[in-house]
């Protein structure tokens, strides 16, 4: 019996919670012969194992890197607080799961940046890896720290900590980057020269080669390369052939239960609906569908290779996938035989989806989800959410007739132009859905005689590359007042006993807003707040708003500058140097239309000229269908 080496001693592993998070060795994890490896890549997810292991993007990149013969990609997740403390006390360096080797032995430390509230966990990982936190202080002996993921569309608050940000989809440029790296390594050209060459690869943003100049009011005057040969702007990378690209046929199967404990089948990328608050809907344009025959093959192969008992479709709006009925029929047929569950998130509620759902889930136990996002038709027009009250009530009636008794509703508070009337609309719509239940289900057929409406509100945070990037965000006090108004309006409804209301924390939404539209000056706030002991901010029990406020104060930075201020149409944004496909002109047009309460048709119906056609494919080059279902 060959003992496999572990980074942590038995004493530590026996002391900490869920030691299985740190031992690697999962089925399908990739172990390579170190002596044959040229480039070692540590793929880091700055959150706990259970969340990081549920992320499809990492699995895709893990598969892609490991398909390169002389590259070995391994996984790293944020150690939990119990282990974090021990690692600091005993000076144990952050290690990768597969080899259990310290991250400092690697060539690259890749960090995926999925949400703003994980920024401090990035510092935790750098710190535990025993690297200087600031990129400018790292030397030849340290790995190249590269960031990717949705938050890199405004990487500026993190600019001081990273050597490179990869802007866009990971499938396209890593091979180029690795080959430039190998060249520089073999010729011993050094870190700075490698970064200089990397900065010329499309999609690569190397913050050290850019300077920011500010106006007196702290808005940006100019954002310029500080060396010749460094591009002025960076265009996001897009994988235009989503069918013939990397997809992990052998995803790693965790031992412990993780958030997504299932096969994930990404059916398409992008979304045709231009909801004006939604960042993903803009960032992942144009819509690109995967070939349905390929998806069927993937489904069977991945189920066979993992042994998972569930498969889930993934996309921003599954109902808009053109071959959905065919794919679902196939899955129901194949999975039924093998006792495999099918999970179908992000489906529009209509006769088709209700029929499908009644086949794949226990109607009595499951609930239906609607995301009207706003309480009135007026405000839904402002945000370009096509879903109408009529459609929601019709869908609910169908669902109640089909035996469902639980409905979840998602709304946002603090959307641009919102009035008290819009807020009351949330309560009234919830009430009407409850009333629909009592209308369509006769007394004798009511299970427990009850219907349960769960109405949840989140606070709206304006994001870069959306039409609302110019919009002011509410203050914490305004947010809480709106939640209070919602609660009050719900208690005034006839069916209030059937409605349960949940709302989010306001502090975190304010901070998320600061970081989302932040600039480079925030790097020092992040450093300061981390020094005060803050990380795992995404976990409410570890979030300390007072420490964040202290850090802003000590750095002389006013968080309101990033949130409550309405930006003028000609302001230069920190993220303007990134070309995400959608043009600023388009976003501006949409922002003005929003204020006029005008809607824009979805991509399948009519092209809005957003700019994504520049990538030369996807829906931008398909025929339009003026009769395409408008609701979502």
């Amino acid at each position, binding site marked *: 019996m060959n003992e*496999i080496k*572990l980074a942590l001693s038995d*004493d530590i592993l026996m002391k900490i919670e869920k030691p299985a998070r740190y031992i*690697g060795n999962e*089925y399908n994890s990739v172990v390579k012969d170190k002596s044959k490896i040229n480039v070692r890549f540590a793929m880091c997810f700055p959150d706990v194992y259970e969340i990081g292991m549920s992320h499809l993007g990492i699995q895709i990149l893990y598969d892609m890197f490991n398909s390169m013969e002389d590259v070995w990609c391994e996984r790293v997740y944020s150690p939990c607080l119990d282990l974090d403390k021990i690692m600091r006390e005993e000076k144990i360096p952050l290690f990768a799961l597969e080899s259990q080797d310290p991250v400092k032995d690697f060539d690259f430390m890749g960090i995926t940046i999925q949400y703003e509230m994980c920024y401090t966990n990035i510092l935790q990982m750098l710190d535990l890896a025993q690297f200087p936190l600031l990129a400018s202080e790292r030397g030849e002996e340290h790995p190249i720290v590269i960031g990717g993921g949705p938050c890199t569309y405004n990487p500026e608050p993190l600019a001081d900590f990273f050597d490179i940000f990869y802007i866009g989809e990971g499938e396209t440029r890593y091979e180029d980057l690795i080959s430039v790296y190998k060249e520089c390594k073999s010729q011993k050209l050094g870190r700075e020269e490698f970064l200089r060459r990397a900065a010329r690869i499309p999609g690569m943003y190397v913050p050290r080669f850019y300077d920011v100049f500010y106006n007196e009011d702290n808005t940006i005057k100019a954002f310029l390369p500080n060396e010749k040969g460094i591009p002025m702007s960076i265009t996001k990378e897009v994988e235009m052939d989503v069918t013939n690209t990397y997809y992990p046929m052998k995803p790693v199967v965790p*031992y412990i239960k993780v958030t997504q404990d299932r096969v994930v089948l990404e059916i398409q990328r992008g979304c045709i609906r231009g909801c004006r608050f939604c960042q993903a809907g803009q960032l992942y344009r144009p819509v690109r569908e995967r070939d349905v025959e390929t998806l069927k093959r993937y489904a069977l192969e991945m*189920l066979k290779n993992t*042994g*998972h008992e569930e498969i889930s479709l993934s996309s921003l709006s599954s109902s808009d996938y053109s071959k959905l009925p065919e794919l679902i029929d196939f899955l129901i047929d194949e999975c039924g035989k093998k*006792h495999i569950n099918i999970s179908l998130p992000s489906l529009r509620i209509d006769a088709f989806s209700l029929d499908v759902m009644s086949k794949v889930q226990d109607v009595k136990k499951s609930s239906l989800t609607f995301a009207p996002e706003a309480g009135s038709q007026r405000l839904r027009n402002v945000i370009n959410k096509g879903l109408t009250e009529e459609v929601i009530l019709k869908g609910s009636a169908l669902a109640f007739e089909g035996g469902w008794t639980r409905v979840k509703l998602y709304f946002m508070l603090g959307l641009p132009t919102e009035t008290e009337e819009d807020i009351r609309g949330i309560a009234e719509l919830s009430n009407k859905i409850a009333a629909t239940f009592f209308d369509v289900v006769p007394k004798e057929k009511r299970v427990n005689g009850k219907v349960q409406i769960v109405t949840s509100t989140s606070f709206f945070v304006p994001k870069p590359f959306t039409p609302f990037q110019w919009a002011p965000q509410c203050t914490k006090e305004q947010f809480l007042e709106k939640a209070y108004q919602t609660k009050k309006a719900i208690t005034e409804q006839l069916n209030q006993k059937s409605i349960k209301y949940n709302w989010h924390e306001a502090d975190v939404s304010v901070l998320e807003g600061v970081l989302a539209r932040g600039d480079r000056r925030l790097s020092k706030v992040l450093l300061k707040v981390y020094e005060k002991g803050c990380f795992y901010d995404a976990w409410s029990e570890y979030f300390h708003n007072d420490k964040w406020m202290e850090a802003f104060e000590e750095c002389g930075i006013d968080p309101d500058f990033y949130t409550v201020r309405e930006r003028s149409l000609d302001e230069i944004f920190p993220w303007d140097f990134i070309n995400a496909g959608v043009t600023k002109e388009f976003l501006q047009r949409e922002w003005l239309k929003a204020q006029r309460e005008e809607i824009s048709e979805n991509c399948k119906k009519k092209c809005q000229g957003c700019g994504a056609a520049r990538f030369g494919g996807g829906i931008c080059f398909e025929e339009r269908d003026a009769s395409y279902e408008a609701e979502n």
Partner: protein
Amino acid sequence: MAVEYALKKGMHLMKLRIKFNKYGPVRFIGHLDVMRFFQKAIRRADIDVAYSQGFSPHQIMSFAQPLSVGLTSNGEYMDVEVHSIVSCEDVKNRLNAVSVPGIEVLSVKVLPENAENAMASVAAASYTVRFREGREPKLNITEALPAFLAKDNILYNKETKKGIRELDLKQGIYELSYRNNCFHMLVDASSAGNIKPGQIIEALLKEHGEELQENALLITREDTFLNLGTEDDRKLVPLDEIGMFV
């Protein structure tokens, strides 16, 4: 030669008893996760496993005795119900082809129809126990053991949620010896009287005024047994002794 045991619908299922080991890093995986591991491995191996009825069917599976996190084992058992197999050897090979380092299926046998399930069958378990380097007690164990075994009662204070409960371990220690710096023990592992190896060693050291150091023991479960005899006249055999190879 391969034997096809396909059963017709409506007929009863075939129960397999699977023996496996657990060592290396996977010793830090808890009991429920080992169960999950096998549920997935069985699907990967394409075993014709039986599922329960109802809206969320699950594999019909029973584990003999949970193994505490950190322990290694050469004798873990689980029962699985299947519709058909090609042969016991085939099931074993298929499972090992989709396993991980540290979990290896050692044998697969078909149980007689009336066999009790693995969990209910457990009567005893054998262990080998060593001290970790640097955590050995001062006590000369070889000298101390005969007197310890000759006692009428071996008392041990077990901490429970409700407070401390005094147990007498004596009745549950069937064999205990110490050779080559290693304890060999056979003890009660039934649900009513389960004894953990550490409890015995703690009791032994306490007799001589010594405390067991934290995480001082390296414990391997060697095998798990069922009782073919009676309460008073035990005939302990490995859990899969009652099965047969097909």
